[in-house]
């Protein structure tokens, strides 16, 4: 999947992955896709709940070699 912006939070603990993702999302225009990378297991549930709460679209998420990847589209 092609992302317009990549937010790399590998090695960071809560709340930083979502703090960084939010900052990036604020700069994006509708339709753009953000890819968030995280190594924090807690971010899996939190990021999904956050995207739902701010009413954006979580296109997909996956895990690869201990890195969680989330694709979020700004609506």
């Amino acid at each position: 999947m092609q992302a317009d912006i990549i937010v790399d939070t590998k090695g960071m603990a809560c709340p930083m992955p979502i703090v960084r993702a939010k900052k990036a999302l604020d700069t994006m225009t509708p339709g753009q896709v953000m890819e968030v990378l995280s190594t924090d297991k807690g971010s899996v549930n939190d990021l999904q709940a956050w995207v739902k709460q701010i009413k954006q679209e979580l296109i997909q998420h996956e895990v690869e070699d201990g890195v969680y990847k989330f694709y979020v589209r700004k609506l």
Partner: protein
Amino acid sequence: MNASAGIKGMTSKELTRRILAKEDLFILDVRNENDYNDWRIEGERIVSLNIPYFELLDGVDNALEQIPANMKLLVVCAKEGSSMFVAEQIADAGRTNVHYLEGGMKSWSEHLEPVFIGELQDGGAVYQFLRLGKGCLSYMIVSGGEAAVIDAARMTDRYMAFAQARGITIKHVLDTHLHADHISGGRQLAERTGAAYWLPPKDAEEVTFAYEKLEDGRDITVGRAVIRIQPVYSPGHTIGSTSFVVDAQYLLTGDILFIESIGRPDLAGRAEDWVGDLRDTLYDKYKELSPELLVLPAHYGKMSELGEGGKVMARLSDLYRHNPGLNLQEEEAFRRAVTENLPPQPNAYEEIRQANMGKIKPTEEEQREMETGPNRCAVHDQ
């Protein structure tokens, strides 16, 4: 983040003391809603509120409106970072008496608090190790400089430090049954202290290590004062479940009988088969024991089961009067109560059983992950 904000850390130990002392505390739990609904810190005088930290990134006004300014505030999250982040904002907004839980729920789930239960007839004592974060109870029976530890949690350092501080040698480590809700520390504690590790043979058919067999009539002696730990074969929660009569005073019931509930028979996938065993144990076998025995279970489900100073204990005769699980006279009603509408099974219970049998060897981080959440070993838990 303003690291110099006036917030203070609160340890799990301090939180435990406050809960046992029934002090007022307001908890703002900033984990996501599912985690909060599944498992949270409870106490008689605790008021708790859940607002996920990601709803407080733009400011904490929404939280401030709901937090009374005159109460001590504790902000809690999974590990620590998010609670500090939120607590600092609350302190920056002018609030005082703002704390965060050091190590978060991870550390909370691992704290063990020793509670003195009572003395033994010929000197010696029984201590209950309260794991408030999970509702698990373990025990240390001490006499003549020796000790037996029963249903040890995996935080084996705690028992060793407790024994060492009192010049006690741990000689025996016992598990009442093969646990499904938490990783047993029994085997590790026995290895580290050179103690004998005892298990019920019927629960241990698949274990990958050597152990001593807990059997009816095979008494275990602790100390010079001859504190007899007399095993009572009491199947139901698991087929091998074994209770212990200690010093003719205490009945350690494992996960068979709790204060306000009874054990569930379904965690090894054999509910229907074991209903009859559970009923025999509760309605016949325990009836043959002295009604004066003080019951010490391996779990509690509700905060109301904690008595004075945090003791989880009740006289057997009182339980026969008040415990709903001991007052289902119709066999059919009993069968339904222990097989239908059971609470969800504990997190990763099948993997936990495998680990306790020595079949899988999870890392410490994986063990922590497997144990997340409440124990849910009783039929009435939630």
